[in-house]
């Protein structure tokens, strides 16, 4: 069989990889000694070899980094220490930077006395269902908009984008009267269904799908992959970074959803965390900041975890190697 092929093509050496053996170059082509290097070249060499930059520049760079980090981290640190402080310690003057006495009981107060477990459960239910529904709808409608030809497609897509321009608050009254009419007040369905239709994902995913190389779609078509098989086997595996971004944005948005659940949920049974936090604040005559901050930490932590899990996926470019490049 391989005799029919040209010997050069048949041997693995035909692949332009590193030469098997480094032969010495033709005599007379190489200059003697080390190459001359001017000051700028030396500076560049130091910069790329890792210990680079002038000490002043590096100090300045680190200074800016620390400053930025402080701006972001200081409020977070304050939430953290306040959540671990006793009531008296919180109002101490001057402020204490380390909780004294250490009061982790704020967390148990929140979890035991104030139904925070229920709020957490409700938040997880609402966010999970909303994320699954929104991502599914978003990906499917984007796939349709990107690859199906049907009359009125462009107009429909224009309407979809148009709905992005309408602020949520505008639809609240009509949505509320509808949900109330259906008897869905204080139910999960009442909270979830009106929030489930979001145009943003369809817009994001469609634009991403259109940026995929058309040859790959054509190759799938010629390989007689069906419509949905193409989606799951070819299109989605190339789209994980965008899908992750979409999922992350959806999870954070729905987790932090405040106004609509606040209107629909009237008791603890369906109330998500952000609404629970306000309950916490109002539960006593004077706000006890320790448990409120503990509640804030519990509310924020899951989002931090989701972000840490998804950010690697988001950054990873998976289309590398699809076409020449």
């Amino acid at each position: 069989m391989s005799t029919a092929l040209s010997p050069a093509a048949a041997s693995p050496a035909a692949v332009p990889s590193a030469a098997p053996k480094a032969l010495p170059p033709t005599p007379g082509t190489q200059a003697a000694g080390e190459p001359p290097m001017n000051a700028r070249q030396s500076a560049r060499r130091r910069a790329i070899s890792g210990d680079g930059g002038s000490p002043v520049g590096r100090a300045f760079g680190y200074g800016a980094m620390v400053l930025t980090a402080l701006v972001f981290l200081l409020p977070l640190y304050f939430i953290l220490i306040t959540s671990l402080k006793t009531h008296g310690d919180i109002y101490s003057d001057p402020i204490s930077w380390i909780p004294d006495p250490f009061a982790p009981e704020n967390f148990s107060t929140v979890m035991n006395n104030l139904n925070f477990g229920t709020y957490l459960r409700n938040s997880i239910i609402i966010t999970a269902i909303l994320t699954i529904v929104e991502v599914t709808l978003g990906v499917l409608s984007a796939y349709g908009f990107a690859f199906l030809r049907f009359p009125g497609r462009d107009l429909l897509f224009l309407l979809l984008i148009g709905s992005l321009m309408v602020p949520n608050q505008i639809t609240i009254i009509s949505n509320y009267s509808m949900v109330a009419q259906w008897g869905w007040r204080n139910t999960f369905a009442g909270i979830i269904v009106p929030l489930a239709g979001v145009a943003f994902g369809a817009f994001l995913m469609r634009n991403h799908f259109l940026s995929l190389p058309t040859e790959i779609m054509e190759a799938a078509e010629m390989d007689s992959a069906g419509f949905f098989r193409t989606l799951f086997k070819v299109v989605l595996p190339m789209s994980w970074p965008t899908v992750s971004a979409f999922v992350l944005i959806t999870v954070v948005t729905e987790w932090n959803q405040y106004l609509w659940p606040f209107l629909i949920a009237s008791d603890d049974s369906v109330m998500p965390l952000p609404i629970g936090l306000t309950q916490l604040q109002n539960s006593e005559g004077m706000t006890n900041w320790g448990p409120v901050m503990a509640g804030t930490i519990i509310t924020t932590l899951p989002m931090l975890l989701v972000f840490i899990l998804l950010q690697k996926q988001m950054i990873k470019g998976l289309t590398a190697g699809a076409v020449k490049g």
Partner: protein
Amino acid sequence: MATVAFQQASRIFDSSRPPAVNRVSLEIADGEFLVLVGPSGSGKSTAMRMLAGLEPVDEGAILIDGKDVTEMRARDHDVAMVFQSYALYPNMTARQNMAFALENLKLPKDEIARKVESAARMLELEPLLDKKPSAMSGGQRQRVAMGRSIVRDPKVWCMDEPLSNLDAKLRVSTRAQIAALQRELGVTTVYVTHDQTEAMTMGDRVAVLEDGVLQQVDEPTHMYENPGNTFVAEFIGSPSITLLEGVRVDRGRALLGEGHTLDLGMPAQFAAKLDGDSVIAGVRPENWEIVSRQSTDREDQCVPLQVEIIENLGAEAYAYCTALMTPDSTVSMRQKRIAVRLDSAKDAQIGDTLWVRPRVGACVFFDPSSEINLRYL
């Protein structure tokens, strides 16, 4: 294994502009290797994509194995394609890439494995089977793309400039490999390229397209020697043929040179097909015979050229010259310079004057108005 027939097939993107593919009629025999060539935008890729079902046929019909596939979906054409960019699935290994089509056809697992293995063996892909495309070199990706296209025994094998992304050396070896593979598999193949060498060496026949219109379909050598019109003559062959316009025809003979004394050897029956008293003559670079490098007493038998550029290719060389014409000459040239093949770069120097004449019987003659080769009129 199948025959392919284009029956006046057209692709019209925009009704206000000429069709991208204009009423192409073409028969491809079972197992034939047809090369489609043409300049950029000539519609060669579009024509092939119509055959693959990736472009609609707006007029006419395309038949594969006698069956009309004009309105069929691409997947039902049973055509496999190697894309210029390879279009491998980046999330799949080479094995999965090759197996994908077979899995879609719901073949049994052991049969899929057997077919993938045999295709991999044929293309020397075994060590790459479990690698993803991103971990492969360009040449390896190209071979996986070929493997993916042959693994399901298509009726027709389409290739869209599959070598254009490879480096020059790899291109030469892969060219031979594809030609050998096609002969061995015996699959009807349509191969799109703009590369002269690929067109001349790979195909059983070559089809030349310009502006969507099929200009000529012929065996490569026959086409090279007998181009159907001036476009094909200029397009096929590198360096280009020299076209001399306004060559005088006197008593059935085409004459050149001072005093019209140089007979180009036009067959007598051609003169009868001519209306006027002039003809377009074409001379390939290798068909100029260098009579002398100095002034010669046979000057009336040749034309003087002044060498302007010498292109030395090592084994041979080409001199690009301007003709030293008499002021009242009726002859004009299509190209700025006349290419003359030299056996060695030492044969001439820039600024030299060469006295040359076309070899007897090696000229091609075209009708001055339709520009069609007189042989075909």
